């Protein structure tokens, strides 16, 4: 598996959560909610481009909408590889945190 950076991982999770409604604005919203601080668009696009390049994410264009000044949206969705990567990521996370939750509660 190609290792993911922290921001790539977070964005991958955000796209999965958005289920087909993932594009710049929504991704930024979800990521900001998840992490609790405001993200720059720039900080989202760069990892997005990298994820696209690694083929974890596929992008396609939606039809232009009037609300965006006639500009089209670029939608993102996970590829199978992306989903696998996410699963694997979750397993690793679980392994990492195993037995720690009790201590954290103390």
């Amino acid at each position: 598996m190609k290792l993911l950076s922290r921001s790539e991982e977070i964005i991958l999770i955000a796209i999965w959560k958005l289920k087909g409604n993932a594009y710049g604005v929504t991704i930024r919203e979800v990521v900001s909610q998840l992490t609790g601080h405001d993200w720059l668009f720039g900080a989202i696009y760069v990892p997005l481009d990298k994820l696209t390049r690694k083929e974890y994410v596929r992008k396609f264009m939606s039809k232009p909408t009037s609300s965006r000044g006639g500009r089209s949206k670029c939608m993102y969705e996970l590829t199978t590889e992306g989903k696998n990567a996410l699963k694997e990521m979750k397993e690793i996370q679980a392994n990492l945190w195993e037995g720690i939750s009790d201590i954290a509660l103390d």
Partner: protein
Amino acid sequence: MKKTNPPKIAEYVLFFFLRYEDSEHRLGDYKESFEYISAESNYWKAARWYWLQVLLSIPHYILNIFYWGGSMLANYIKIALRNLYNTKLYAILNILGLGIAIALGIVGYVNYEFSQSYDSFHENNEHIYSINHFKIRNNRQVNWSYVPMPMAEQVKNKVPGIKNISRMSIGRGSVKYGDNVFNELFQFVDKDFFEIFTFPIIKGKKDAIEQKDGVIITEEIAEKYFGDENPIGKQLLLSPDGESNYLFTVQGIINTPPKNSSINLDVIISMERVKEIRNFDPETWDRWSRATFIKVDPKASAKDIEQRLQEFKQITNEANPDFLVERFYLLPLRQISFETSNLNGDPFTSGMHPAAIISPSLMSLFVLLLACFNFINTAIAFASKRLKEIGIRKVLGGVRSQLVWQFLTENIILCFLALVLGILLAQVFVPAYDSLWPYTDFSINYFENLGLVGFLIGLLLFTAIVAGGYPAFYISKFNAVNIFAGKQKFGGTNPLIRVLLVFQFAISMTSLIGGIILYQNSEYINKLDHGFNKDQILVLPIRGENDFDLLKSTLNNPDVISIAGSYSLVGSRWNNEDIEIDNQKMRMAFFDIGENYFETLDFNLLDGRSFNTELQTDIKNTIIVNETFVKEAGWKSPVGKYIRRVNSEESVEYQIIGVTKDYHYNSVWRKIQPAAFTFGNKENYRYASIKFEVEKTKEMSEYVQNEWKKIFPNIPYNGFYQSIILEEAARITNSIKLVFIYISIMVMITTCLGLFALVSLNIARRSKEISIRKILGASLANISSLISKEFVIILLISSILAMVMAYFLVDLLFSSIWAYYVDINVVPFVIAALLMIVLALLSVSSQLLSVGKTNPVDKLRAE
């Protein structure tokens, strides 16, 4: 209506950083969020948010460009190299022109750098000062490097903040080792001298200066006397006046001071020996040290020290009532080279003449700018040839930023090739320029001169960006369909090119006019009538009456026309003193001459008579003045009138017995001032001037040298031609001329190359039009006028501009260098204009001829 759009400028900035293929939807993302915020709160908050988002995101995008950019850059370079290869001729012409200009720019920079580098090699240079003083004479400040001898010791003891102090006294005399006898300068210094300055002793004892019977010599002197032998421990016989002799042991060797040292060193002797050798008491306050240096504590303030120095004014002035000090002051070491021409006492080698600093720097900057203009011109003109390529790129989805990068890459490659060429050429140009001047010693070190490297790279990037950016931004606006339909016209000449062309022609013509006037000036100075005979006089330095008589009786040769004695020497030695006429003060140059001098050098008498050796009254009491004096005094018949010399120990009254035509006693650098001859005593003679037949120059020199060796075996022969004294001016004038002529030739070539490229592109662009005209019967003359009309107009405008510019600039330059120079007449202007027109026509017509030869059908069938 409510404003709903994000700030335009911010959007534009953002667009610049986004990849084109992503720009649309990403701008959309930004806009959607913007609208949301705008609706939630208000427009201004949203605008603020937008700006912050954009600015803070830039670093991310730049990283992203690097992430993606690698592959595109390789493509840009590939296409750029293909393009350059396809347009070899223009690429080579451009690289050549810019490369030569860069080399000249480097020369100008190195020259400037050197002029600013005087004395910078001393480790503590910013803490070293020379103590000087000034007096007020005729309401004018006159600076002197002199400081009373005993003052140094007292300053060191009383004034806080001074670490070291050293005096310097300069004497001259002969030095003998075996058969080698030469005249040398001796520098007497205190032992702190080597603490103050960085003149490391490379051989011998570090404390050599403390040896009273030891001397320290420079490598150059050591080489002269000892050749390959080890000089340490060898004995030198010093004779300051030709009679008394002192034996010294060489105790140390120092590096010969570099040419950018204000302090000249030859034979260094401990100051403790000055009393016996130079025969004066260094403890008295009326004896002066030629120069006095201090090294101050880095924490001390120079102002405070200067203030404390004034305490010594009173004691100094009491001892020297005729030479009153107004104020002592400190001159920082690094300033000395700029001040030498304003400083009396002559302890330092002079720095570079301001003209030798300014004119090369300005000229090289001009040439560099010109080459950049030229480069931009041709690059823009070239872009017009590539309209179709651009159209195809656009159709295939090429976008503006890609076009911009493509053009930039090509121009940056060209510029850097030119830079490499320029650096290579500079390796030849810099030494060549260096050899033109006697006082320079250039070296180029790019690693130490980061300023130069930065300047060149900056300039080239600027050139590349303007040259590549203008067409790229402009053309990328065009609609691809229009390009193919042939509706879109671009290139050839547009307003920017026209303006640049005018400047280019104007600058090159200005330098051409300058070059021609300098050529005339050099001829003028070579042929200048100095007002006396300078060509057949051999001058021998002597020591008074005995030497003179001995020489006179020995040199019995029919080729010797006459022998004259004198204390002063026209062109190199005289005294400037105050005189009084009609209760009015004036400065006058006094030449103390002896028997035959007036006649031997053929001064022209306008009125009255010259000195009569028979008349005792002529000695000390008569004077022959020059025309300038008569003019300034406003006298109608000066002969018989009296003037009073007030500045010497006793004031003396002289009767004017004659008036001479003006003579150039101070070369052509300075205006002729009031000057006069007085008749001096034989025992004061310092020079013997020998007049001989012109054809016998070589034989005479050998003959006199042989006789000299016979009668003065212990004194080195130091004879020189009178003309040598005046040659420096001619040589420097000649160097300036050469520099200018080379530069104007370079400039002309660059300009013509640019014109050549422009015209050929113009013809290429209009090839169909020209072909159709030819088919319809237009003659070559018709077509020529069609193509060249525009250039002729540009040439005319720039000629007028150039003539006005040249007239003022040349006058400014000349009056800052020479006091006497050729009158500016119309000839150079006409020659320059004709030459420029001929060259321009040649470069245009060479292209037109090829048009004449081609078959119009071929051109039309091309598509």
